[in-house]
Structure formats: C-alpha cells, structure tokens
C-alpha cells in the first residue's frame, strides 16, 4: 500500500524541486514558456472545441460560418441523437463489453500474478517470459486467425467474441503490473496469515486482494479504456448492428450522414464525452498505470 501511495504522490511531491533547483523565476521570464504552451494547447484543444461548436450549428450554417460561434444555437443535433435509442444502445454495448472484459482480465490476471509473485515453482520464469512476450505482439498479427477461430467457435455477433480475446490480449500488461505490486507486500504478512491458519487461497482472498486495491484500480482503469476504444476486433466480430460499440457506431454514422456535417460532429462529441469524463475521474490511475506498465514491461 505504502509503495503505491508513494508512487502516486510523487508527481506533486517532486514538482517542487524546480523551485529550489532553479533560482527564483519571476513571471516575466516564464512568459515565452506560457506562449509556447498556449500555442500548443490551442492546437490540441481547437479540434475538440470546433467539433463541439459545430454540433450546435445546422449543416447549412456550418458551411456559411465554419469557424465562428453558432448563431443561432441549434440544439436539435445533440437532442435528436440523445433522444434516439440507437446511441444509448451503443453506449450500453460498449459499457457491458468493457466491464465484462475488465472483470475477466483482472480476476484471471490476479490469480496468475499471485502465483508468480508468491510461489517459487519449476517453470515459473519460462511461463512469465511467455506472458511478457505477449506484450510485444501487435493485435493485428493475430486478428485474421483469431477471426477464423471465433467463427468456428460460433462467437461472431456475440459479445463474448470481443470480451474473451480482449481479456486474453490484456493479460500480459495486467499480470506484469499486478505481479510487481504483489511482490512488494511483505513476506511477514504471509507468514502471519499462515500461522493464523490461512491457506494460499485464503491469504490471496483475505489479505492480498484487499491490500492491492490501488493496483487493482489501476489495471481496471487501463482495461476499461482499452476495451472502450477498441475498434479492430468489434469491426471483425460484429457484422450486424445489434452489438456495435461506440467507435464502430461513429464510423457508421459518418458513412450514413456524410452530407450532414453538423449532425456527425454532434455524434462525435457525444461519443467522446464518456471517455473524457472517465479520464477526468480516473486520471491518476490511468497515467500511473500507463507509466508503470511501460517502465516495468
């Protein structure tokens, strides 16, 4: 616990060095820095702002007045989409698939990571290397045969056809992060639990998992975001629209309403909101998980 607390506290704690590291930095000197950051920030934010504003215009208005503020503000684009069941079905599908993937990958990885972290057994390093090798292989490599496999298993147009492979491809990163965390939990605790009559499963369930809550949070956030944004696999697996997820829906919507720019912008913005909202709540876990995953992998 202390280890992750220390880790997540680092950014704020260590942002201070520059104060004493660099001699007093008056506002005047940092003006060019603000200028650079402002320009970069504008370039980063402008596409999003433009999309959000364009959603409030009619397509006709958009072609007459592409860059200005909407006048009048048109609410029907957003309203129509939010009022239609289609959009909410996509949100529901994306949510269901993301949650199921996350539960599966975290549960299965936690068991494996526990074994890697707390047991010495023949073949351990070989097995661990096997999993870590999974990190290096792009999903695209396996896409085609995976599709054939899912077809022969009858899992096309079935959410399991996306959930199971997503969980499988999420294993390496999740196992690596959890193993690192489980190893930091002191051996004394395990001894104490054994003395108190806990078997390995009891120790795992009653001691290790509750202590590992921050790490479980981190890997869960990573799994949710990865699943939420996945495009390739749902594109292969879902041939009819019943189970489409948001990214597929956005692409289809653009194809369907290609002439109605404003409506597509509104759809885009609404499709981005859940991910951005999730990011704003779970920023720390997401960034912490990504940096931990990258440096430990």
């Amino acid at each position, binding site marked *: 616990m202390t280890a992750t607390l220390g880790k997540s506290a680092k950014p704020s704690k260590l942002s201070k060095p520059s104060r004493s590291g660099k001699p007093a930095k008056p506002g005047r000197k940092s003006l060019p820095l603000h200028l650079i950051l402002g320009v970069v920030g504008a370039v980063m934010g402008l596409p999003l702002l433009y999309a959000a504003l364009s959603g409030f215009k009619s397509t006709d208005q958009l072609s007459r007045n592409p860059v200005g503020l909407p006048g009048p503000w048109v609410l029907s684009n957003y309203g129509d989409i939010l009022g239609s069941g289609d959009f909410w079905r996509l949100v529901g599908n994306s949510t269901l698939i993301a949650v199921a993937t996350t539960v599966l990958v975290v549960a299965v990885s936690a068991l494996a990571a526990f074994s890697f972290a707390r*047991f010495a057994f023949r073949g351990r390093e070989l*097995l661990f290397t096997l999993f870590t090798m999974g990190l290096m*292989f*792009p999903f695209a490599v396996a896409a085609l045969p995976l599709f054939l496999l899912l077809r022969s298993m009858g899992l096309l147009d079935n959410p399991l056809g996306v959930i199971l492979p997503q969980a499988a491809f999420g294993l390496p990163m999740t196992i690596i992060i959890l193993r690192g965390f489980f190893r*930091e939990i002191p051996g004394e605790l395990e001894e104490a639990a054994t003395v108190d009559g806990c078997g390995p499963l009891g120790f795992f369930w009653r001691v290790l998992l509750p202590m590992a809550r921050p790490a479980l949070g981190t890997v869960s956030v990573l799994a949710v975001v990865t699943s939420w944004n996945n495009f390739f696999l749902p594109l292969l697996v879902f041939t009819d629209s019943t189970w489409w997820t948001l990214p597929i829906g956005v692409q289809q919507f653009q194809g369907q309403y290609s002439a109605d720019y404003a409506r597509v912008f509104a759809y885009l913005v609404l499709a981005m909101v859940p991910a951005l909202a999730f990011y704003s709540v779970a920023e720390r876990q997401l960034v912490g998980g990504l940096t931990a995953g990258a440096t430990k992998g």
Partner: protein
Amino acid sequence: MTSTFLPDKRTGPDVDVPPMSAGAAKGRARRRALHWLTAVAFQVPALVLFLVLVLLPILFALYAAFFRWGGFGMPSDYIGTDNFTRLFQDPVFLGDLWRCLVLVVLSVAVQLPFALAMAVLLNQRLRGRAVYRMLFFAPYVLSEAITGVLFSMIFAPDDGLADQLLGHVGLDGLGGEWFADPSMVMATLFLVMTWKYFGFHMMLYLAGLQSIPRELTEAALIDGANAWQRFRSVTLPLLAPTLRISVFLSVIGAIQLFDLVWVTTAGGPDHHSETMAVTMFQYGFKRYQVGYASAISVVMFGISLVFALAYQRFVLRRDLEGATTTMRGDAK
C-alpha cells in the same frame, strides 16, 4: 525482494521462497509436488485464455501462410513459400514497409523530441501546469477510430477547419486536399498521430524526469553548469531508459497501425497511406485470400519479434543492469 529480509532462505533477486514450503524433511517430495500443483493451478485460467486466444491464432497464421486458401474448411492447397515470394514482390506491401519506416523515423525525429520538450517545460513550476498536462494527454484516451473521424472532417478539403483557418490567416497555399492528396496524406496522418500520441510519451518522460534525484541537478548547478549543460549531461542520460522504452512503443505502434488509417483513408488514395495491417485486412476480409493475408501477419509477427528481441538484447539490457545495480544501492 521482501524475502531477503527473512533469515536462512536461499533467495535470488526474483526467487521468493514461500513460507509454506518450509517443512520437515519427511514427505518433502510430496509436499513439493503439492506446492507445484497449487502454484500452477493459479496459472491455469490465464494460461488457457492466453494459449487459445493469443498463441494459437499466431501459430495458425504461421501454418496457413504456406497455403493458397480462401478461408473456408481447412487449408489444403500447399504452395510452399509462394505467398512470401509474392509478398516481397508486391509493390503495395513493400510500400507498407517503407511507410512504416517513415512513420518510425518521423516519430523518433519529431514527435518524441517534441514530447520531451513539452515534458521539460511542464516539469517546471508553472501556472496552469496541471491543465496543460491534462489537455495534452486527453487525446490519448479517445478511441483511434473516433479521432480518425474527427480529423477526416477537420481536414476535409475546403470546408474543413484546417483549410478554413489557413484561408482566414491568408495562408491558403498551405492548405490542400490533406488526406486526399497522395503527396500529403502521410504528413497529415503523422500530424494526427502526433496530436493523439505525443501526450502519452510526454507523460512517460514526466514520470522519468520526476524520478531524477534533485541532488544531481543541484550539484551540476553548483558546478556552474548552465541549463543546457544540466539537461545534456544530467537529465538526458538519466532519462535514457524512459526514452528507449518510448521509442520501443512508438515502433510497435507503427507496425500495427490500423484504426486511424482505416477510418480516415482506408489506405488511399491509391495505397499511399496503406499500412501492413490494412493490406492484411484487405486481403483477408475483402478479397478472401486468407493464405496470402496470413503471410502478411507472419511477416508483421517476424518484424515485431526480431525488433523486440534485438531491442531487448542490445538496448534495453543496459537498463536492466542499471535497475539491478540501483536496487542494490537502495537496499543498503
């Protein structure tokens, strides 16, 4: 690591001897077998999932690549290495390789240095630092497909935001067809990739920068090193492990690039933005030349494997050595 504090147990850096195995000599073999079974039982669910859905497909692609096969029934028309011979004479695939290289070079030469510069800026105490950090990283959490749709509209010829803005500031000459222009499509794609991904690399660098002990830069400051010298001789070398990992992730990302390209251009115009994954998709799912598409998968796999092994052997290895020595230093 923790077990090093426990007495009379043989421990290496990554061997944790669990207390459960410490028992009487009698029945030790049985106990050890039980211990092994317990340990492996925890691995079974993960292993099954991994073997069936990750390893098996990759092995199957390796097999199917040697057949002429439409994807139905089992492959039977064995044609040896013909698919590979054809692949390396296919101008589109050779182009894919070239474009992959271009993206890697552009990332390493432009995107990553830019991310590093931003990380160094945001590592200082600045007003609004957290806001910038959040804004720069935000595109990373968006789906690549959704980002693609957004930018296909922003770079729409004439009507899109890009051309409109350039027109407003009198730079019409810089505008153009973007994704529809064979000579501009890769640059446009790279622009979008940078928008989406530089923030991620910046976050990695920020984490790396913050783990550099303050004492080192302070010592350099006392020795009279200026800002550039401190960056060049203290910060950069200490950041090297992070930089190497970020280069690694960039390359793996370029090899498997699909979503963004598929949504914006589908590889066009006339293959000018096609990537290996897009070519594979075209042959495997649109033209039903599954054997040939498998050969593309295999080559992608081979490139990733060779790159990953070579990188680990020659580049990342130093980091592991560094990590173990510092760990030992810390333990004291």
